[in-house]
């Protein structure tokens, strides 16, 4: 294998980035411990009263106990993420690389976790956890991340922003770093709901408290939202109609999902979609769409044709010829033989049938019979 071409990126990125972050948090805690100790040092260099001394030591103890708790939390997360990294790499080592012509069998070993990831992204939490448990792939699936998201998405489905806002507060620094617009959008939505209910004074108060801090970043959005005060829900006026639309809540949920994925170093799309797009393109040939198409071809079914609708066709600059009788590849070792009617079968098939039928070959598709001596070999490069 050459450098960095494994397509299992999300499998490792997710636990590793979390591990890296957590060990960084450990460093902050340790820095804090150092600063606490230096206050002790400071105290020992200048004279102070017993009262002051007692207060200093009590303060120090309180801070140290707090840091101890934090360190304990950090340790727990580190342990879990280090275990996940290890388990996932062990899994990759154990399934190895696909042997020639064994790609389907090999992917069978990856399929369950790819499906579990898709189920989680779609919000099918029970299916995902059941699948993970049954196939014993819990360490290979990010159920924990979606468990955290579940309550928030449920809240948004009930048109309630509170859980989502809480989540924003919890991850404020990191969300700011990835330039998340989520919190601002949630605030706008709460504001719009007040306007929808005609609670104008509250809306104004709300905008002062929660919207104005964003004015530097999103001035245009903010102004447009504030102007909504002048309209009612149900307005036909273009940008304002959109603000009041029910779809806004769905978009909010999507925005949250995206930020959740970014925060956890997950790709925005599932491995399933990524694989299907690539795979369906690679398989898409005009022959798939013929009515007599091989049913082993996923693209011979209506459902997969629909899935592949907007995807590009595969490219073939070399011929790949399969004998319809033996299903063997036709090449120089098993050359293609042409019947007088133009149908092509492999030499192997022709010889097999001729041996049984006194030198007569009958084309199974057209029913035409001919003497094997009338067949002509084709040379295909």
């Amino acid at each position: 294998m050459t450098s960095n071409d494994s397509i299992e990126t999300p499998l490792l990125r997710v636990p590793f980035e979390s591990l890296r972050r957590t060990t960084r948090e450990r460093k902050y805690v340790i820095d804090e411990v150092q600063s606490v100790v230096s206050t002790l040092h400071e105290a020992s260099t200048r004279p102070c009263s017993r009262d002051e001394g007692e207060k200093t030591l009590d303060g120090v103890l309180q801070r140290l106990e707090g840091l101890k708790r934090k360190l304990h939390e950090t340790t727990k997360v580190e342990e879990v993420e280090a275990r996940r990294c290890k388990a996932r790499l062990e899994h990759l080592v154990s399934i190895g690389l696909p042997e020639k012509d064994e790609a389907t069998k090999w992917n069978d070993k990856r399929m369950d976790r790819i499906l579990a990831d898709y189920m989680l992204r779609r919000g099918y939490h029970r299916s995902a956890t059941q699948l993970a448990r049954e196939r014993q792939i819990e360490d290979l699936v990010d159920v924990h991340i979606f468990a955290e998201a579940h309550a928030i998405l449920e809240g948004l489905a009930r048109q309630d922003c509170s859980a989502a806002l809480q989540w924003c507060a919890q991850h404020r620094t990191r969300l700011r770093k990835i330039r998340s617009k989520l919190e601002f959008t949630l605030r706008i939505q709460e504001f719009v709901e007040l306007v929808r209910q005609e609670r104008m004074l509250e809306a104004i108060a709300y905008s002062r408290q929660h919207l104005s801090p964003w004015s530097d970043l999103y001035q245009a959005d903010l102004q447009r939202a504030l102007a909504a005060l002048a309209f009612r829900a149900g307005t036909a006026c273009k940008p304002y109609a959109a603000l009041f639309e029910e779809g806004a809540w769905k978009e909010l949920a999507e925005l949250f999902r995206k930020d959740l994925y970014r925060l956890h170093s997950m790709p925005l799309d599932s491995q399933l979609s990524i694989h299907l797009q690539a795979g369906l393109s690679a398989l898409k040939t005009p022959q798939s769409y013929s009515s007599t198409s091989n049913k082993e071809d996923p693209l011979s079914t209506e459902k997969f044709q629909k899935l592949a609708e907007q995807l590009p066709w595969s490219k073939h600059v070399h011929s790949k010829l399969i004998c319809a009788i033996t299903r063997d590849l036709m090449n120089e070792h098993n050359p293609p033989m042409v019947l007088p009617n133009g149908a092509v079968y492999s030499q192997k098939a022709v010889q097999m049938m001729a041996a049984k039928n006194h030198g007569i070959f009958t084309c199974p598709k057209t029913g035409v019979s001919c003497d094997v001596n009338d067949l002509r070999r084709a040379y295909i490069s």
Partner: protein
Amino acid sequence: MENFEVALKEAEKVAKRQRACASKSADSLNKLILEVTEARKQLSAPGAGVSDVFNALEGRLSKGDVVKDIADNTKELHGAVNKLGKAVDKAFVQDICAALRPVQLDEGILDQVIAEHLYQQGNFTVGDTFVQEAGIGNAAALKKPYTAMHAVLEQIIARNLEPALRWAKEHQAQLTASNGEAAVHAFEFRLHQLQFLHCLQSSGPAKALEYARANFGPYQESEMAEIQRLMGCLCFVRRPGASPYADLMAPSLWSDVAREFSRQCCGLLGQACESPLLVAVAAGSLALPTLLKLATLMAGQNQDFLTCNQLPVELELGRQFVFHSVFACPVSREQSTPDNSPMLLPCGHVLCKVSLQKIAKGTVRPFKCPYCPAEATLNNCRAIFFPDI
């Protein structure tokens, strides 16, 4: 593979470092707390000098190097994590979405396809939960074809061929119509053969012989050679491993028959033998590394990989993924179509019609084959076709 192994070693080191660092840091912190608690006690004792207590504490802390210990351990953990990070960077593609088009796959259809996959794989429990959660309406219809099949498969795995034999008998007419009599005979005989061998191993030669006499009759003609071999087995029962018939005792015969059964079954159901979702994902896993590289490359050259309507390169996925004969003209490098069919020259070389007409320059005069010295005219070239598999 090697990259994974390197990364795994680093991950193991991280786990070890993390354990060491966590326990040492916790110890040091506890020690620190203990010392400060002690100092606090001393301070409340009557007559204690404030600066004495502080100085003593300071002395104990610097002697124990408590703080430095914690800092060193943390640094070591960071070092190990950074190394793991480098190994991960080296093993995995950076942006797995680079080749992704901004099109959304129809989620409703995808859900149905997944439900069908779960049922086809025999994962009925998860299948049922999934169908419920995804709100799939025609769930019963998706599941039904596989219900009978999986009951039989489970029995084959438990070394019971009765249900499979019964199934083959019940579906004999349909199987014959779709696969031909010879194939059906061969499949039936495979089942009887395995049942005979199983009988021989579990109940002895007398019972096996009885089974043979009762069941091998219809296959006398087509399978004589094999029947002779099976009868030969009867005298080697005691040491089957050393007999010339060892291959007949291999456990893989059972999984082969199970696989053959599910192929036949899916075939009759008009289904693909392999789960189409799995096949598509497998094709994707082979195509992705190339497509990702290509997408990066083309983005650098300002070419748009994401809008072309044919992939810019040929992907070699292997025989497993060739479901149709594809003829590509060696001259134009284009695939044949019904309007541009492959043409056989008298010398046996094959070109597409369009290429041939270009070479002939639209005349009936003879021209030279581009691949050999032979001459041909348009009139003595003829169209050929590759029947569907």
